[in-house]
Each structure stands twice: as C-alpha cells, then as structure tokens.
C-alpha cells in the first residue's frame, strides 16, 4: 500500500519536475496572443475548423491564416474577445453565414453527362464539370452532404438553398464546393466585395458602376418581396431614391433582353421599391458591424462622400462628413433641380444615412473654415476626398464677364440654395451636357420667354442623358446645333444683348470617336439674348491646396483631378483616398457611389494595417466576355413599361417632380420581363 502511494507520488513529481525544467530550457518565444486565443477556444480538438486541434487553430488565427471565428463551437462572446485580442477589424466579430451565388441550377445547359459520377467534386475533376458555365452550380449536392448542421438543401430549381437560421458559418460547404458557389462571409466582407471575374454576374450587374446585384432585386420585386429588394440595393447603393430618379442607367444598355426586345426598365423598378420604402413612412433597419473605434474624415458630402461614409459606418468605423454648403447632398442638391429630384426626397434619404451614426458637419469648407492639419490633429486615421467638380470651365471668348453672364454650376447652386437670381427674357445656354439641359429646363420653369441651347456638335453627340434631351425637346427648348460661340455682345451698361457664334461642320472623328467640329469661315451669326449661361464642363476646385501641409504632396492630374489608383482609390499619400467627380472628372451619381464603396474597401484595409492592394481579379466595370451575347433566343417581345410623367403643359410652369413612379401592377409586370440572367444561362420564355 505505502509503496504504491509513494511510487505514484514519486513518478508524478519526477515527471512534473522534468517537464517544468524542460519548459524553461526549451522555451521558444511564442506570440502571447496564441495562448490567450487558445484559452478562448472550445478545447475539444474536434478539427471542425479544419486545423489539427485547438492549439493549431489558435496559431492560425494569430497568424491571420484563419478568421477569428474559425472555431465552430465557441460562443459569440468568445469570438468577440478573440477579435479584441487580434485588434479590431471589419467583420471579425460578426457572424459568418453561407450565401449561394448561383441561382442557375437546372436551367444551366449541360455540356456532358457523366453517368455514375454523382458528386460535384467528382464531376468537377473532369473538364471542370458537366455544365457549360465555368462558375455555375453542378447541382449534385456536395455542400448538402458537407453541412453538419442540416442548413443546406437542394431547392426545387436544382441549386442549394441555405437556411441562414441554422447556418453556423463553419465553412464546410465552401470547402466542399468545387465551384465556389457557396461563400461563407460576414456582412462586412460582403459589403466590401468588388465584382470579380469569377463571380456569377448578369451583364447588367457587370455594367452597373455601383455593382448592384440587379437580377436579384428584380427577382425579389417579382415575388413581391419589396423589403428584400431594398436591402439588396442597399448592399451596394445607399442613394436609391436619388438614383432611381436621376440615373441614366448604363445597365439597361447591356440588358440581355434589350438584344431582342426593349431592355428591362431596371431603374424604374429601383425607384418603385425605393419610393415604396419612403411612402411606407418607416425606415427599414440597417445593420452595422460592431464598432472599431477608427475615425475617418470625409471631405465633401455629395454622393461619393455619402456612399463612402455609409459603407465605412456599416463595417464598424466612425466617419464624419465635412461639407462646405449649408446642406449635404452635393450636386444632387445644388446641381440637379427640384423637378427631377425633390429636396424633400433627398432629405429623407440623407437622414437615413446619417441615422446610422455618421456625423455630418455642414457650412465648413476645407481651406477656409478649417485646415488639413487640424483634421489630423483631431485624430482622424484616414481622409477621404469627395469634393466633386464645382469649377465651371470658361469659354475664353471676349465679353464673358458682362452682366447677365453666368456659369452653369454657379447658377444651379444658387437656385438650389433658394437664392434670388436675376433672370433674363431670352436666354442662351451653352453646352450639351446634363448641366446645360438642367439650366434650360430650370429657366423655362422660372418663366423666361425663350431658351436656346447652343451646342457645337449635333444632337447625336450630346453627352446629356437621352431622357433629359427628349424631355427638353418636348418642353419646347430650342436647339442651336453646330454653333461655336465667338463673342458676347453687350451695351454701354455692360449688359448682355447678344451672342455671336460661328457655324460649324463635322470633320474627322477625334480620339473620343466623336467627329470633330470645324468652323465654317465667315459664318458669324448673332443670337438676340439678354442672358447667357456657360455649362461646358467642370473641374474640381482644389483651393485648399498650397497651404504648406501634406496636401501639397498630392499628385494632381492635368485635368485638375486627384491622381488615384483606379482599383483602390488611394492617392500617393497613403492615408488620403479620393473618388467621385474629384477623381474621375464630371461623371455620374452611380459612378461616384461605386467609387465611394471602392475607396471604403481600401480605407478599411488601411485602417487594419493591411497593404492597400487591389482586389484580385476585380472586374472594375469591365465585362466578362463570355457573358456578352450577340443574340438571345427564347425571348418573346413584350412592351416595356412607359414612365408616367406630368403632361408638358403642366410641368413647364412648376418645379413639381416631372417623372412619376410606376404602379405596383406595372412593377410586377416589368419585373416579369427580366430574364434573371447570370453569366451564361437565363430564363427562356416559352411561347
């Protein structure tokens, strides 16, 4: 008895002693975080995370080879604690969920049939699988078998459907899928993902500068799930009310239905659900990731600034917007007139964005009311520039500074700010873009007798949105094409009395493919006008530079825009980013929104101390060649829904909104016209 007690005791002590000495002698420096993380893991050595045991998993987490929520067993609090140990980072403390990217399923065409092979990975190992589509679902359910939580089943259309309630985000399905159809991601990762060449994307979604998942939201509308449609849009575009009204919808030019029929009226559907949310009176709650405490200064509260701030906030950072004008919105407020985008609607939309917890400081202009140094001193970790393009180009002709001469942005901003402007009776607006048209239509509503639009090329070359040109034609605006202003004629009181122009004719095409206008000698003609507005383009106003701080080191292009890496939005000063008109030159609202999100992704990387590199294989609004068709079969011609609008006689006297929203029945009909495209397959219409 005694011996055995003595023996066991002795053996224990000897082993213990040896081990404790060994741990001193053979001590290897190990990241102390590994031990901390390991303590927070389940300790079950189950291997569910894909690593051999918990200590291996802890090491992988600390070496950033595994996400902090790699362990499938621990509680959310532990994950948040691990996230704290690892330093705050977008998405870390958020739950992972599986998403299915392919809804083609059985409709995708088969290339080969392999009898007997009944798993996706088996089939995939032969020539990439039996389906024509290079990325699409093979439909044999490896993911269903891989899921240990019964969260995936194959839906009636032959592709996996994830039950988000049951999904624990373990990643087993993603690992099992040979095609990366199932992706296990956090909300933040999804918000910041840029369209990539391996994604399952319809041609319209590839074209959209904001990268909205268009077929998905249209499908939601078709099923009457309007809230889901709004959420789908808001994953990529926080300004859906504004875009639904003013976007020239480049997506529609690539709509597959448009090859055989008229394109789906994508933008009106967006406006329909956006208005639905606003008119319902209650805002759909928007989720934000846990706070990271990192602060970002956003200079300029236009679409680019609002979009960047929105995405930064949703992934957990703390953006603050600094805006020079009395209210936020940029050109949406001070450029685009009331009859196209009512201020009431814009206010509602912007308030929704600010409600997420974004500070908006208005009436503060960088370079006048505060300087760059004070921003940095205030502890902002990064700065985003979205100052737009507010400097009108001058014509460079004599007499341009007479009374009665205005520039486009200046004029519209005054109107937008409800300032009094002295308006003439007969007005010439010079230019062919949106600004020129908006000036014309605004003037008309202000009650002038005659508006002439003077453009040096022809209607075909006008850069303004087609719908805008049509609307202004209807409203009775007179176009003077192929006319190059030569000089402004005035009286003794320095007041404009006329505009002399030279007639032009179209010559050889220039670099942009448009035929270059050349003046016809001796063709001087005088227009009898008493007010002239020049709207021939804008460039950014960079007056805040040249004050001897870091901003002077910024590279500026010869168009006076910020020189950025187009894939990241980063400037040559690592903590300064830019997007929108300030980086691209005058462009579109959606482009500014897409740029803002792209920059938000880079700023997030930067705030986490990671290298700011372009996302691998990002499409950046190029197209996937195989998805662009010449012809499409299985399409029955069906009339595109007409946009309801105020009758011309009514609308030219008021600033009431001109374009109206389509009815629910029309929205349902229009959404049924969508072919629900992906890369290759789409829903054929049977006759």
């Amino acid at each position, binding site marked *: 008895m005694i011996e055995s007690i003595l023996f066991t005791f002795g053996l224990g002590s000897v082993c213990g002693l040896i081990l404790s000495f060994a741990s001193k002698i053979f001590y290897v420096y190990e990241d102390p975080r590994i031990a901390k993380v390991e303590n927070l893991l389940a300790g079950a*050595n189950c291997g569910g995370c894909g690593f051999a045991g918990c200590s291996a998993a802890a090491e992988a987490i600390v070496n950033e080879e595994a996400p902090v929520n790699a362990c499938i067993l621990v509680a959310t609090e532990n994950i948040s604690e691990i996230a704290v140990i690892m330093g705050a980072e977008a998405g870390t403390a958020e739950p992972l969920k599986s998403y299915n990217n392919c809804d083609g399923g059985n409709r995708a065409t088969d290339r080969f049939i392999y009898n007997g092979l009944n798993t996706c990975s088996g089939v995939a190992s032969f020539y990439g699988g039996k389906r024509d589509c290079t990325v699409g679902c093979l439909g044999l359910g490896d993911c269903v078998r891989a899921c240990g939580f019964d969260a995936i089943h194959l839906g009636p259309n032959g592709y996996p459907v994830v039950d988000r309630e049951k999904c624990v985000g373990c990643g087993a399905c993603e690992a099992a899928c040979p095609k990366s159809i199932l992706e296990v991601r956090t909300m933040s990762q999804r918000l910041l993902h840029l369209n990539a060449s391996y994604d399952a994307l319809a041609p319209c979604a590839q074209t959209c500068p904001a990268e909205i998942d268009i077929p998905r939201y249209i499908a939601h509308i078709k099923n009457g799930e309007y809230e889901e449609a709004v959420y789908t849009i808001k994953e990529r575009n926080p300004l859906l009310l504004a875009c639904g009204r003013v976007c020239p919808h480049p997506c529609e030019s690539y709509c597959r239905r448009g090859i055989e029929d008229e394109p789906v009226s994508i933008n009106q559907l967006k406006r329909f659900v956006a208005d639905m949310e606003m008119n319902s009176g209650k805002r759909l709650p928007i989720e934000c990731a846990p706070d990271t405490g990192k602060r970002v200064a956003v200079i300029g509260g236009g679409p680019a600034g609002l979009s960047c701030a929105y995405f930064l906030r949703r992934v957990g950072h703390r953006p603050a917007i600094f805006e020079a004008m009395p209210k936020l919105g940029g050109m949406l407020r001070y450029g685009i007139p009331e009859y196209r985008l009512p201020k009431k609607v814009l206010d509602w939309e912007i308030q929704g964005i600010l409600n997420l917890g974004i500070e908006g400081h208005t009436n503060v202009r960088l370079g006048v009311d505060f300087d760059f140094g004070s921003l940095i001193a205030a502890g902002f970790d990064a700065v985003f520039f979205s100052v737009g393009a507010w400097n009108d180009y001058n014509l460079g002709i004599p007499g341009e500074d007479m009374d009665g001469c205005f520039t486009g942005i200046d004029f519209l901003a005054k109107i937008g700010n409800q300032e009094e402007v002295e308006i003439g009776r007969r007005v010439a607006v010079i230019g062919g873009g949106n600004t020129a048209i908006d000036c014309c239509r605004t003037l008309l509503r202000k009650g002038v007798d005659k508006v002439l639009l003077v453009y040096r090329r022809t209607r075909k070359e006008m850069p303004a949105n087609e719908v805008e040109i049509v609307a202004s034609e209807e409203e009775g605006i007179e176009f003077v094409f192929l006319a190059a202003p030569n000089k402004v004629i005035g009286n003794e009181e320095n007041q404009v009395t006329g505009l002399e122009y030279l007639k032009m004719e179209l010559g050889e095409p220039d670099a942009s493919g448009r035929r270059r206008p050349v003046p016809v000698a001796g063709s001087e003609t005088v227009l009898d006008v008493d007010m002239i507005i020049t709207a021939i383009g804008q460039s950014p106003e960079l007056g805040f530079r040249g004050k001897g701080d870091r901003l002077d080191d910024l590279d500026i292009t010869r168009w006076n825009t910020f020189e950025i890496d187009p894939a990241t939005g980063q400037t040559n000063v690592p903590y300064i980013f830019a997007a929108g008109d300030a980086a691209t030159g005058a462009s579109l609202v959606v482009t500014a929104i897409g740029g803002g999100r792209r920059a938000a992704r880079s700023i997030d990387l930067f705030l986490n101390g990671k290298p700011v590199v372009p996302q691998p294989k990002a499409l950046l609004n190029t197209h996937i060649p195989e998805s662009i068709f010449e012809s499409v079969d299985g399409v029955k011609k069906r009339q595109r829904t007409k946009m309801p609008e105020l009758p011309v006689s009514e609308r030219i006297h008021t600033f009431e909104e001109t374009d109206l929203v389509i009815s629910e029945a029309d929205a349902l009909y229009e959404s049924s016209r969508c072919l629900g495209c992906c890369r290759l397959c789409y829903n054929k219409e049977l006759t």
Partner: protein
Amino acid sequence: MGYFELIIACVFVNNILLAQFLGNCPFLGTSKKMETAVGMAMAVIFVLVLAGTITWLVYTYILVKFGLVYLRTIAFIVVIASLVQFVEMFLKKSIPALYAGLGIFLPLITTNCAVMGVCVLNIDKEFTFLQALVASLFYAVGFGLALILFAGLRERIFLARVPKPLQDTSIALITAGMISLAFFAFQGMV
C-alpha cells in the same frame, strides 16, 4: 522467434489497427486526406518507438524491481504522456523543421490506445529490449501502412455515390471492416 518473423508479425499478421483494432480514433479521424494521414503515420512511428522502449525500461528496471507490477497501467500512462509533452517541447526548440511536420499531431496521440497497447503487448509477450524496440517500430509501421491505404480509399470513396445513410463515417467503418477481413489472410503465417 527471429526478427524477420517478428517484423512480419507486427506489420501484417498482428497489425495493430486491422487485427487488434487499437487506435481507431486517429484511424477514422485523420484518414480523410492523404496528406494528414502521412503526417499522422510519421508521428505515430516516432512516438511509438520512444514510448515502447522507455516503458519497457520503466517496467523492467523499476516496477519489477520494486514489485509494483500491478501499477503498470497507471505508470505507463503518466510516462507516455510526459514523454510526448517533453518531446514536443524538445522538437519545437531544437528541430523546428521536424516539429513543423509532426508537431501538430503529437498532442493528439499522447495517450492513444495503439501506443498504450503496444507498450503493454511488449511486456505481455516478454520481449527483450531489442525485440521490444523492433516490435514498437514495426507495429507503428503497420499502423502507418493501414492508415495510408485507408486514406487512399477514402479519397476515392468521396467521389463515389454513397447512399445517404451510409455516408462518411459509416461507409468508412464498413470499408475498414473489409480491409480487416483481407488482413485475416495473413493469419497463421507466423
């Protein structure tokens, strides 16, 4: 018994996995992928050679000497566990390359039943030290052989059509049973 027969007996006839059914958990757990299976096999060889010889020494020179043979099991467990821990620390510091290859498997087989079983068998069969060393080495080789064979099969089974109730572990157990039957053919050779 000559050493040749001993080797054949350990690897094939009395294969620790397929004839004695010891060490089934790592056998099922790490046989899904060939890469992991190879790593595991190496780790088992390494640990078994050490454990088999050390426990033989402990048994012969301590337990027998002091008449404490009845404490064999408990003593073996403590010795093997500490040994593996010690080796892990040693490798991490001195031979990091080897640690990177085997390290992650070591804690998983600390007191694996195959390890324990071989140590006990060495004693029961009254092996000499050299015989114990050879037996431990080749039992482990037999373990590795079975594991790697099995991983190869399972990689293929993954691509095949398996009825739902039989998927994953169940089909693995059935397959294991059949390989085990095949190994019965070696019975009676030595």
